[in-house]
C-alpha cells in the first residue's frame, strides 16, 4: 500500500486544494492513484493524516476508514464526493460514544468528504466547497431524519443538527433527549394559542440540535452540552386558502439534559400569504409575502407575554398584490403597482397576571414615487408611520 494525498495528483492544477481538508488527508492506496476514470477507491488513514484527525480516530475507535466515490476535473473545476463504506462499524461506534442517540434511535452513520475547487483559485484561496462531515440517520416516531456535523478536529464544542420536513411526532417520541426526566414533561402544557391542544394537536419536528463537548486530553470524553428542538404545528389556515400560519413553532433548549435538565422556551411563527390563482390547501407554491412572529412565553419568574413581527417582501411586490392575494383575484383598488409595503413591524407585550397590554408599537414603511411635490423635481420616495405606546 502507498500513501497518497489529493494534492499529490491535483495540487499543481488546483493550488487552492492545499488549503482544504484534502491538503491534509492521507489515503492508503494500491497502485499509483486511487482514481480510475471518475471512480475513487481508497482508505483514509486517520493516523497518518495528523493531529486534525485525532478526534475522529478516538470518537470512532478507528485508525482508518475505507472510502469510495467520484472525482471529476472538468472545465477547470475539481469535484470530489466521497463516502465511507464501513457504515455499520461507524454506526456502532457512534451509538457507543453518544448513547443519547444510540439504541433504536440511530439507524445509520457515515463519513463524507465534499470538495469543489476552481483552477483559477490561487494558493492563498479557499476551495468553493470544503466539507468533511459525519452523517447520522435517526428514527423518531414513525419517521427518520438526518443529523449532520462537520467532523470535530480539535477539542471543544461541535453541533449535530438537522432540519426536517413532514416528520410527524408525538412528544413522547422525544423522551430519549432528556433521559432522566423525559422530554414530554419539559414541554409547556399551556400555550397562549388556541391552536395547541396537548392531547389532539399534530406536531412536527422541524429542527433538532445536539451541542457536544469533546476532549481528548485523556482518551476521549464526550458530553452533551445542550439539546434544542423546534417543534411545530404546520399549515394552520388563517384565511383559507390564502393565509397560513406555517409554522407555529415552540423552540426548546434543554441544558445538561443528562444531568440537570433546565428547559427554556420560545415561540416562533411565520404567516405566509400565497399568490392569487395559485392557492391550495396545503400550499403548493412559494408565498408572495411572509410575516415572521417571535414571542417570549411567560414563565413563573416573568409573567410577560411578548410578541413581535417582521414583514418580509423579497420580491418587493406592491400593496395591490397583497390585496389581490387576499381576494384571490385581481381587485382594482386604484393603488399604483409601484406602491410597496417595505416594513410592517409590530410588537406587543402583555402582563398575563394583570391581563393588560403593557406595551405596543407599530411601524409601517411604504415606498414609491408619491408625486406629492408635482413636477418640482423633489418627491417623497418613502414614508413611515411609527407609533409607540408604553405604560
Amino acid at each position: 500500500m502507498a500513501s497518497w494525498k489529493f494534492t499529490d495528483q491535483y495540487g499543481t492544477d488546483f493550488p487552492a486544494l492545499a488549503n482544504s481538508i484534502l491538503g491534509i488527508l492521507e489515503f492508503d492506496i494500491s497502485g499509483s492513484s486511487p482514481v480510475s476514470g471518475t471512480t475513487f477507491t481508497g482508505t483514509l488513514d486517520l493516523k497518518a493524516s495528523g493531529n486534525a484527525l485525532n478526534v475522529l480516530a478516538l470518537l470512532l475507535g478507528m485508525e482508518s476508514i475505507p472510502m469510495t466515490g467520484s472525482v471529476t476535473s472538468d472545465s477547470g473545476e475539481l469535484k470530489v464526493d466521497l463516502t465511507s463504506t464501513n457504515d455499520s462499524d461507524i454506526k456502532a461506534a457512534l451509538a457507543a460514544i453518544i448513547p443519547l442517540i444510540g439504541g433504536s434511535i440511530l439507524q445509520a452513520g457515515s463519513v463524507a468528504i465534499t470538495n469543489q475547487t476552481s483552477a483559477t483559485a490561487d494558493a492563498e484561496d479557499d476551495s468553493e466547497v470544503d466539507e468533511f462531515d459525519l452523517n447520522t440517520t435517526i428514527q423518531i416516531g414513525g419517521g427518520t431524519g438526518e443529523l449532520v456535523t462537520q467532523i470535530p478536529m480539535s477539542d471543544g464544542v461541535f453541533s449535530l443538527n438537522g432540519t426536517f420536513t413532514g416528520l410527524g411526532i408525538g412528544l413522547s417520541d422525544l423522551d430519549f433527549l432528556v433521559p432522566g426526566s423525559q422530554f414530554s414533561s419539559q414541554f409547556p402544557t399551556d400555550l397562549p394559542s388556541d391552536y395547541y391542544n396537548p392531547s389532539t394537536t399534530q406536531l412536527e419536528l422541524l429542527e433538532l440540535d445536539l451541542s457536544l463537548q469533546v476532549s481528548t486530553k485523556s482518551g476521549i470524553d464526550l458530553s452533551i452540552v445542550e439539546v434544542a428542538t423546534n417543534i411545530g404545528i404546520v399549515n394552520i389556515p388563517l384565511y383559507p386558502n390564502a393565509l397560513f400560519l406555517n409554522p407555529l413553532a415552540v423552540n426548546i433548549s434543554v441544558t445538561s439534559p443528562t444531568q440537570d435538565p433546565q428547559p427554556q422556551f420560545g415561540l416562533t411563527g411565520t404567516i405566509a400569504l400565497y399568490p392569487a390563482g395559485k392557492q391550495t390547501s396545503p400550499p403548493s407554491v412559494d408565498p408572495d409575502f411572509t410575516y415572521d412572529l417571535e414571542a417570549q412565553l411567560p414563565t413563573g419568574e416573568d409573567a410577560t407575554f411578548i410578541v413581535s413581527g417582521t414583514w418580509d417582501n423579497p420580491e418587493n411586490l406592491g400593496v395591490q398584490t397583497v390585496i389581490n392575494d387576499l381576494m384571490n383575484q385581481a381587485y382594482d383598488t386604484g393603488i399604483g403597482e409601484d406602491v410597496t409595503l417595505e416594513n410592517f413591524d409590530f410588537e406587543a407585550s402583555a402582563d398575563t397576571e394583570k391581563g393588560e397590554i403593557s406595551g405596543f408599537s407599530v411601524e409601517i414603511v411604504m415606498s414609491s414615487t408619491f408625486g406629492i411635490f408635482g413636477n418640482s423635481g423633489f418627491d417623497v420616495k418613502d414614508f413611515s408611520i411609527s407609533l409607540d405606546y408604553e405604560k
Partner: protein
Amino acid sequence: MPNLKFISWNLKNVSRNKLQKQFTAGFQALGMGNTVMDYIVNVVLGTEVWEDVISPKPADMFVIIELKTGGRRKGAPVSGSCIPSLTLVRNALNAAIPTNGYDPMEYQYDFLVPLVAGRYETMGFLYNTRVFRPDPTPGAVSVVAERDQVTNTYLDGRTPLVAQLQFVQNPAVTMRWSAIHDRPPQGAANIRFRPPISFCRRLPNTPSAAVTNTFFLGDFNCQPTNYYVNGAGNNVYPFGTAANLFANLPNYGTTLPDNSLTSVRKSLVNPPPDPTDPKSAYLSSPYDNSIYWAQNLLGGVETEVPDLIGEAKDHTFNPPIPLYPGRGRIVLNAYNRVSDHMPVITEFNIQV
C-alpha cells in the same frame, strides 16, 4: 484582591444559528475552533490555542455587542433567538472550563436576561458567578436600558444597555458595564463622525456616568481623538475637548492606545494602507474601546486588542506555526464568519 478580565466583542448580528456555523473543513483542521461558537469559547477562555496572544485566564465578564433579538422597542423584553443564543454560549463556556484545565470552582458562567437596546438588537452579559452575582434583594434590577437623564429619552440607534452586579466576596461593592453599540460614521469627511460623536456626548447624561466602578465598553464607532467640525467651525470630540479628551466624563479614561484598529476588513489590502501599522492590511478603524472609572485599583489597567488574524497559527504542527501572511486570506475569510470586529480585553486588579 480579584484579578479581573473583561472582554467586549461585537459579534455582528449574532444568533444561535450563527454560533453553530462551521468553517471550511480546511480551516477547521488548523485547530482554532470547530464552529463559530467554539472559536469564541477559545478566545473568551484564553485557551492554549491563543497562547502568547491572549492571557491564559477566562474572562470574568464577557459582553456581547450586536446580539440578535425579537422586538424593536427599547427597554422591552427580548424574544426570539436571544435567550437561546445566550444559553448556548453559557453552556459552551461552562463545558469548556474543566476540559481546558480551569477549575469550575473558580469559573462558572451565567447570563443576565437583557432588554431590547434597539431594532432587533441587544447586548449580552455573561459573567463569572464565582466573582459576581446579581443583587439578591427582591425586586432588584440587574439590567437597564439607559436613557439620557436630561431629555428623558433613549439614545439614538441602540441605547446603552447597562448591567450591574455585586462582588460575591463583598456584596457592598458593585461593578457596572454599559454596553455600547454606537451609530456608524457617515457623510463628508469633516462631519463624518458626527453621528457616533453626538451619541457619545450624551453618555455623560446617562445614570451610569456618575457611578464609580463603571465600564463603558463595546463598539463606539469612533475613538476619543476623533472629531467633527460643527456649524461654528469648532472641532467636537466624543467625550471632551482636544486639550482634555475626557472633560465631559471627568473620572473616566482608557488605556487602549490611540489608533488601535478593531474593525476587520472583508479582504486583505496589500501593501497595508498605513505603512507604520502592518495590521492595517486586515484591520481598518479604531472603533472599539473600554472606557472606565474604577476605584481601589491595585496597579494599572491593561487594555488591548488581540490580533486574531496576524497571530493565528496552524495547530496541526507542534509547535504551531504562524499562518500570516502566507495563508492570511483564508484566516481573514474564516474570521469574517465570526465577526467584523476584534474583541477588546481589559485586565486589572482591584481591592474589594
